[in-house]
């Protein structure tokens, strides 16, 4: 291995902790999508499908019931 290669490898190694920190942060961002998916699923199944009724009184009743159930 040439001196140049060794220096390059050392530079890469020195940068590893920062790369790990960045990766950890990105992984955490992805984990947070789970709650968003669950919330959207809940909204679609509990609220949007019943709201298809499009009846104003019915909509008010469905919204109130959803709010009480949160």
């Amino acid at each position, binding site marked *: 291995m040439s001196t140049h290669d060794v220096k390059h490898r050392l530079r890469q190694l020195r940068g590893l902790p920062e790369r790990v920190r960045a990766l*950890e942060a990105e992984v955490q961002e992805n*984990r*947070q999508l*789970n709650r968003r998916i*669950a919330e959207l*699923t*809940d*909204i679609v199944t509990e609220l949007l499908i019943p709201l298809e009724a499009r009846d104003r009184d019915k909509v008010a009743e469905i919204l109130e019931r959803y*709010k009480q159930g949160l």
Partner: protein
Amino acid sequence: MTAVVSDDGLLLPAGSRPLLVEIDGHYVWSLTPVRDGRPQSGGVLVPWPGVLRPYLAGRGRVRITDTTGAEVLYDDEVGLGDGEGRLAVVDKAGNRLSVDKVGHLARSFADTGEAIQEEIMAGTRRAIDDLRDHGGVDAYLNYGALLGAIREGGMLKHDSDTDLCYLSPHTSPADIITESYRISRAMRDRGWRLLRMSGGDIKLLLPLSDGRVCHIDVFVAFHIGDTFFQLGNRSGTLPREAIVPFSTIELHGHEFPAPRDPDAMLSFLYGPEWRTPDPSFRYADPPAGVRRLDGWLRGFRAEMGSWTEFFNGARVSAVPRKVSSFGRWAESQFGDLPVVDVGAGTGRDALWFSRRGHAVQALDFSRGGLNLIRRRNRRSSLSVSVDQIILGELRSTLMHGTRLARDPHHLYARHLVGCLDEPALDQFWLLARMALRPGGGRLFLEFSAVADGVTAGSGAPVEPYGLVRRVDPATIREAITRSGGVVEHLTVGPGEDMFDLPDPAVCRIRAHWPHPKEKR
């Protein structure tokens, strides 16, 4: 005697044994000196827990012993703080309180009468039955109640509630959270009041006949890969077969489902030494597991506890009751439209708007704040409608957005944006867009701003310390524009903080969201 008791805390010999603290014969706290204290000349100083401090003004007999009570390190009358009366760690109804294993003040089982103990057992049994018959999950007794039942044949003396867990069949966090939403809806339908603590645990509030409310925690447990997770924050190795099919244990005359192998569960929770009592036990959860649970299930109620403490504590009385100068400025532009005060806090502005004849809704995420507004609302015979919004929760934001989109109104938010983290702030713009686009109302915003050479930078804390942060007006303008809004007015200049104390840079914004058909 080998200890010193002062306003600073307890100066104790360095040691790793757990110790118990009583005031006038009532247990209040347990601690382990080397873990909870810091070295100081003469030993280790363990500061009084923050939750006890408001009660430490007066005289009382403080007794510090080992967990058996046989060895006494301190037993003497002391005077603490500047109070004259007897020290008493009690709730408003006079019930004795102690610091529980997660650092909250709670009423310990030892200070609970037999009839009330029976109510707690029956309520726990009813919760298990409702979870099974209506929530569709089989729950088992766990944590302190399981430990007490197995080791001592009854509830632990210093425990304060009962904990239930259920083993989810799901292996994706999104499915686990959706299941938890379904369970909470089913339990509400059964008449339970509850609080959501994360995407995987809820607190059932069981009212007791002595006026107290017992908390029954319902935690999810699940496997992802080879790792077993159980809320609170536990993670590690425990096979499914150690939990199901359940065994049965008896606790105070009631039969409860328990993990199939209680020994394996208790070792998982408390380590192999679980048979030796340690009331000051603290969990040592693997950081990687906590990080994963935080990422999957949490984030929407960070700081909620601190705001509750603020609204229930003495500091809140420093917030003036009269309307803020921003409230006056905004109100002069309201016209006839109703107003929604988002992050209404103590309700000082919302109540004044109501007095001025506006239809007003006050929204906040802190139940402490909402209760304060309800009380003031009642006392002043006003009709501000009060409701919870959790901007960190998409469901809550979308639900309010959908509701508000139906009628025109203004949104008003003073010192809110500086309290929100990035995801909650994003959802605030979503709320504004949903709520204002159809009706033509305005958004009125005021917040502690960043001003070059005048203030600290973005994120710098302002009062109440740490809960509100300075925000750069340019980022707010950009976010409003990005979400389809139009900033009509923006000024930065001297103003007031939440306590009406001078703030060198406060930003005022008025914005609207044009209807999709409107030309911008």
